[in-house]
């Protein structure tokens, strides 16, 4: 074997005064960083294998472990950064496409952090959400242009809607990309809090059919696990065209993750690769999307809203308009900071646009075309906290999807190694030894707590604005001001600068 240029990313430090040699770290590291030598009764670390997931640090009962960046410096070079150089070493060694996990980690501007929310002072009152009613219930689905009454009787039939107790849902993550326990956690949390989880394109595991009322079932290009019972099981159906982390390319669940349960759920043989083509091969043009939307509506006898999810790409506004006109009831837009279990690095870091701009553009475009009220707009792609949610809604979203935030709630430590299948937190793995590390009862509580906490915060901020129903924030861009943004950014976002 020739020399490998790989050097450790992390340095594992063990405080021997604190270490009690309990070997919890040894058992907990799926990457086999920690080793116990019986002969010398000592522990050693293989730094090269460390991915910085902090499992050992978190479980070490005496806090004897620290993980640091490996202090290996290249000569300073603003152009040839260590990560750029190391990427080349890896590719030179393997000839492969660089694969990574989670969302874009490059320092592109985060517009949420350049938007500020408003509050009431004197000219209208803020509301105290602890004692006064504060409504965050949200309905997703197609809305009529108007209601018709005759002699006081409502004539208009309202299309099927997804009812949410708060405008935050768990974004599509397939059973396969994440563990069954992770999906169960999210499903149970969604049920508890009154929102939805999204199956992703992994089908719906038998254990999860009981969560159908809280499920949005996805139909993606691979059509894994898609059959009539599946379509019937969910509250809504989402057609996945694209994903923020990897616009324009398909997915690939490697055969080693297709164990018995994944195989059953996806309805493919155990151990077989699950390939999701880049496009839907029945959609090569926008009118074909209409065909798929209505084939799903036909299959479910028009009882379920159909959503279409796209990645935020350059002409997202026009595409969204086309989707609305193709009959979608809900449009989901996933920004380029959205996460994933596995994506080619270059695609993740270089394709697509930020969700803030995409959302503003789509909302404005649909309003200019006077069709914004007909469809619901859901955005995803790194909503990190309740303020991001507020800002998204003020920019024009009906609701948001969270995924990375939800996984963090379950214990994800953002090591970005989901694609290895060795998630030490039991989330992005199918290894039964690792999967059991996520107790779905605990996971559900943590995920539900996150949503409850955000809901409280949203109510606080809404109250501060003198608003007691979330719909009065939707598209209410006057509640936003930009800081540190160019005029062009402000124009696209449709907000004024702070101080204006």
């Amino acid at each position, binding site marked *: 074997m020739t020399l490998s240029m790989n050097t450790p990313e992390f340095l594992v430090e063990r405080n021997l005064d604190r270490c009690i040699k309990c070997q919890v770290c040894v058992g907990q590291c799926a990457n086999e960083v920690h080793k116990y030598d019986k002969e010398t009764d000592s522990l050693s670390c293989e730094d090269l294998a460390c991915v910085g997931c902090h499992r050992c640090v978190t479980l070490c009962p005496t806090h004897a472990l620290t993980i640091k960046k490996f202090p290996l410096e290249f000569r300073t070079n603003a152009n040839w950064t260590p990560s750029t150089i190391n990427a080349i070493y890896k590719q030179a060694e393997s000839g492969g496409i660089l694969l990574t996990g989670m969302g874009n980690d490059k320092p592109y501007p985060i517009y949420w952090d350049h938007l500020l929310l408003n509050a009431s002072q004197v000219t209208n009152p803020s509301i105290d959400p602890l004692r006064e009613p504060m409504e965050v219930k949200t309905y997703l689905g197609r809305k009529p242009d108007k209601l018709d009454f005759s002699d006081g009787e409502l004539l208009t039939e309202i299309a099927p809607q997804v009812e949410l107790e708060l405008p935050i849902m768990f974004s599509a993550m397939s059973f396969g990309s994440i563990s069954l326990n992770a999906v169960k956690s999210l499903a149970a949390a969604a049920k508890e809090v009154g929102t939805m989880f999204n199956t992703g394109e992994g089908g719906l595991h038998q254990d999860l059919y009981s969560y159908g009322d809280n499920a949005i079932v996805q139909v993606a290009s691979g059509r894994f696990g898609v059959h009539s019972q599946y379509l019937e099981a969910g509250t809504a159906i989402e057609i996945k065209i694209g994903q923020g982390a990897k616009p324009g390319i398909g997915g690939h669940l490697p055969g080693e993750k297709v164990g018995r349960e994944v195989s059953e759920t996806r309805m493919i043989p155990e151990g077989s690769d699950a390939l999701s083509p880049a496009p839907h091969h*029945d959609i090569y043009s926008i009118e074909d999307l209409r*065909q798929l939307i209505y084939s799903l509506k*036909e299959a479910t006898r028009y009882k379920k809203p159909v959503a279409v999810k796209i990645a935020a790409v350059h002409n997202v506004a026009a595409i969204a308009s086309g989707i609305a006109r193709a009959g979608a009831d809900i449009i989901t837009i996933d920004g380029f900071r959205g996460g994933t279990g596995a994506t080619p690095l270059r695609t993740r870091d270089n394709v697509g646009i930020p969700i803030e701009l995409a959302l503003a553009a789509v909302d404005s475009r649909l309003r200019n075309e006077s069709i914004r009220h007909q469809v619901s707009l859901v955005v995803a792609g790194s909503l990190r906290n309740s303020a991001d949610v507020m800002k998204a809604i003020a920019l024009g979203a009906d609701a948001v999807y969270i995924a990375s935030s939800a996984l963090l709630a379950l214990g994800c430590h953002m090591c970005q190694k989901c694609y290895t299948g060795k998630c030490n937190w039991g989330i992005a793995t199918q290894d039964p030894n690792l999967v059991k590390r996520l107790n779905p009862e605990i996971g559900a509580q943590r995920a539900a707590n996150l949503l409850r906490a955000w809901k409280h915060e949203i109510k606080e901020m809404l109250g501060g604005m003198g608003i007691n129903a979330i719909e009065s924030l939707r598209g209410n861009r006057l509640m936003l001001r930009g800081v540190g943004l160019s005029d062009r950014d402000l124009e696209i976002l449709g907000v004024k600068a702070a101080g204006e």
Partner: protein
Amino acid sequence: MIEINAQGIYYKELNQQIHNYIAEGKKDIIIKNVNGQRYIGDALPQGVKLELEGTPGNDLAAYMDGAEVIVKGNTQEGTANTMSGGKLVIHGRSGDATGYAMRGGKVFVKGDVGYRVGIHMKEYKDMIPAIVVGGNAGSFFGEYMAGGVLIVLGLDGGTELVGDYCGTGMHGGVMYLRGKVPSYKLGKEVKSVELNDEDTRQLTSYITNFADYFGYKADEILKAKFTKLIPYNTRPYGNLYTHY
């Protein structure tokens, strides 16, 4: 036996009629003058039998879950899309992406089929989908194929049994082509192997059905030499990626 005249009826209404009849317990329906109405047979369960006369629209028998549909005519694009079970017999030709992501049931086409037929077919346990094509098939036949059975008989002659990139990305299932296919037409993930007894038994069974539906003699068809195509392995892209 119920008869519907579909002349000038919009698909939504036509399908609603079909569903109404099914709800009434009438499950044998002949639909005449079909022309372009989409989604006929969409997600219909076992026990329902539709006979169509004319040219049904796209996504015929999509998500079909056990029903039987007979078409006296040609079918368009997206036929048997994501079909789960049942039987579709087409007394004509069928369009592009027939049997896309099909996971169960059987489709018999008397004539040719379009591009990307059988793309991303998959199987699970005893749910093994199959498409039998009497004529020839277009390019990308069985692309991404992950399971199931594709059979092309080329009974109408012509030189192109299948188009280019046959079985590209294939990682499961099997294709039987009646005759020879030049290797340049095959996707790089596919290899040609000899038929074994099990293949012959399987092939005979499909072709016997085919011959019954369309008035051929199975023996005659089976006389010719078949090419069997299977993927090299179930992990075609295992080495494509490197860990960042």
